[in-house]
């Protein structure tokens, strides 16, 4: 009798071959149900979660990043978050959702749902559409919820190239990156027919799809753009770490929508996800501060905020699968490894990853994805986790995102260029690119 892993491998191979000869969409159109099939409790929670996750980017991430750059680049940094939110929103409705969340091949979804074709809310006939992934909530809510993930992922990357990228180049990069990197990876992991989902990779809320993906892209951006003028020679004083703390707090609270919302239900699993999310964030914060105190003899506010985000990142893939012990362990590991990622590893990589996107999101995502394979509990998740599969999923996403990001950056460089002029960088992007500034 074949073991579970053999069955899984066989199923994966069948799907792989089937995908290569993919002949057409399966279940491409959503199901139409009557309103009594919809759970008002689930719907209320998912509406709330959607708002919480959007708050993570605007204003959460915008404030988090804006507080860490120099005064002359605060407004341009915040503007990037808002711009990305708007670009991705349009792309998602036009084509992104269809390619990510409809069954197609194991690599990418279909185009049958372009412009959300088939999404229905018919009050007169008492019918509405639901996604096959979330049958207890209206499809419109699921589309919006997934959109907020599609927004925050590229917005995270902006921290790596802060203070030196042309605005037009940023727009071009984010547009292409959303469609060529985020959408396929979301399909691989979260669409039940995606090849990583079939392989059994566990990623409850986006450790791979969001954080490893963004971290790898951020590192490539830092390499391709090169260091900021004066990097390593003059101090880059953060504008206002109070803004960063406000942003981090919004991220922390918003993360309850991110992780507990990924249960797509108002149930016990969502409750567990919220609990472990909070525990991991608190543990990572304390760990980061402890490491700071041991190495530098003082704890810092930026360190506390960074530790919190590191813990939140690392618990993300595990949040629907682990218990309290797992949360403590993942939080502690995240605090330790992400501190190293933002300090020691950063020096080794020798890239000006301005706001440590790879050090925190890349490393935190890897820590979380791998430790999910260690701490996932079948009694909570309903399925056995496989450490090898977790590692494969994490590193393939890392390499795919890095390679594709590199290609997109090269294309952008060859067409409109990546960097502002040294004079613009000296004066600041707020004034030279956008004609406004903080007095």
């Amino acid at each position, binding site marked *: 009798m074949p073991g579970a892993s053999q069955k899984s491998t066989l199923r994966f191979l069948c799907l792989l071959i089937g995908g290569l000869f993919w002949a057409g969409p399966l279940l491409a159109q959503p199901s139409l149900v009557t309103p009594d099939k919809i759970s008002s409790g689930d719907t209320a929670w998912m509406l709330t979660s959607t708002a919480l996750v959007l708050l993570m980017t605007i204003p959460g991430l915008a404030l988090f990043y804006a507080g*860490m750059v120099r005064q002359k680049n605060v407004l341009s940094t915040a503007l990037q978050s808002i711009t990305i939110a708007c670009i991705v929103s349009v792309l998602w409705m036009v084509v992104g959702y269809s390619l990510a969340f409809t069954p197609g091949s194991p690599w990418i979804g279909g185009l049958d749902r372009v412009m959300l074709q088939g999404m229905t809310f018919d009050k007169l006939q008492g019918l509405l559409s639901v996604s096959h992934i979330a049958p207890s909530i209206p499809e419109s809510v699921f589309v919006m919820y997934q959109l907020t993930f599609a927004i925050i992922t590229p917005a995270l990357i902006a921290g790596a190239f802060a203070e030196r990228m042309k605005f037009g180049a940023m727009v071009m990069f984010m547009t292409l990156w959303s469609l060529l990197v985020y959408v396929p990876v979301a399909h691989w992991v979260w669409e039940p027919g995606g090849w990583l989902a079939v392989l059994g990779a566990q990623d409850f809320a986006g450790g791979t799809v969001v954080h490893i993906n963004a971290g790898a892209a951020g590192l490539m951006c830092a390499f391709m753009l090169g260091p900021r003028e004066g*990097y*390593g*020679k*003059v*101090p*880059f*004083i*953060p504008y206002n770490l109070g803004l960063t703390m406000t942003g981090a707090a919004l991220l922390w609270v918003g993360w309850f929508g991110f992780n507990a919302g990924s249960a797509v239900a108002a149930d016990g699993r969502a409750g567990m996800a919220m609990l472990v999310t909070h525990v991991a964030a608190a543990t990572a914060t304390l760990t980061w501060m402890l490491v700071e105190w041991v190495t530098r003899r003082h704890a*810092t506010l*930026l*360190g506390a905020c*960074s530790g919190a985000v590191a813990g939140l990142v690392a618990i993300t893939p595990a949040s629907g699968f682990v218990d309290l012990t797992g949360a403590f362990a993942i939080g502690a590991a995240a605090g330790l490894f992400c*501190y190293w990622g*933002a*300090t020691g590893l*950063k*020096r080794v990589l020798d890239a000006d990853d*301005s*706001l*440590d996107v790879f*050090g925190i999101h890349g490393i935190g995502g890897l820590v979380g994805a791998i430790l999910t394979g260690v701490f996932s509990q079948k009694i909570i998740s309903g399925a056995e986790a496989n450490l090898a599969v977790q590692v494969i999923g994490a590193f393939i996403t890392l390499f795919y995102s890095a390679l594709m990001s590199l290609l997109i950056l090269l294309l952008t460089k060859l067409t409109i260029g990546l960097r502002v002029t040294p*004079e*613009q960088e*000296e*004066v600041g992007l707020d*004034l*030279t690119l956008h*004609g*406004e*500034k903080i007095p």
Partner: protein
Amino acid sequence: MAETERFGLASHLYVKLRRSHARVVDVAWMAQNDEYAKEILRIARESPDADVAKIVERFEELLGIRRAAPAPTPAPVAKPAPKPATALEKEVARHYTGHLR
């Protein structure tokens, strides 16, 4: 178009004057307000920097004014000695040089 060029020239002038004279110019206002621009150009003309002279010349063309005769070279003004950095300032500078966290 001229306004965009004025803004660009003002940005360049900002960099040059800040570096050589430690003078901060309001770029946006200089691009909008002729009187302010003229006053800044008067100050900039005193700079021995050839690049600054070129910027001033072009800016004056955009303003539609003839370039005034170069002002006599002012006597060098002794700059006040910079304040010695405190230990705290040194620590802050060290902390944020090459890394954020």
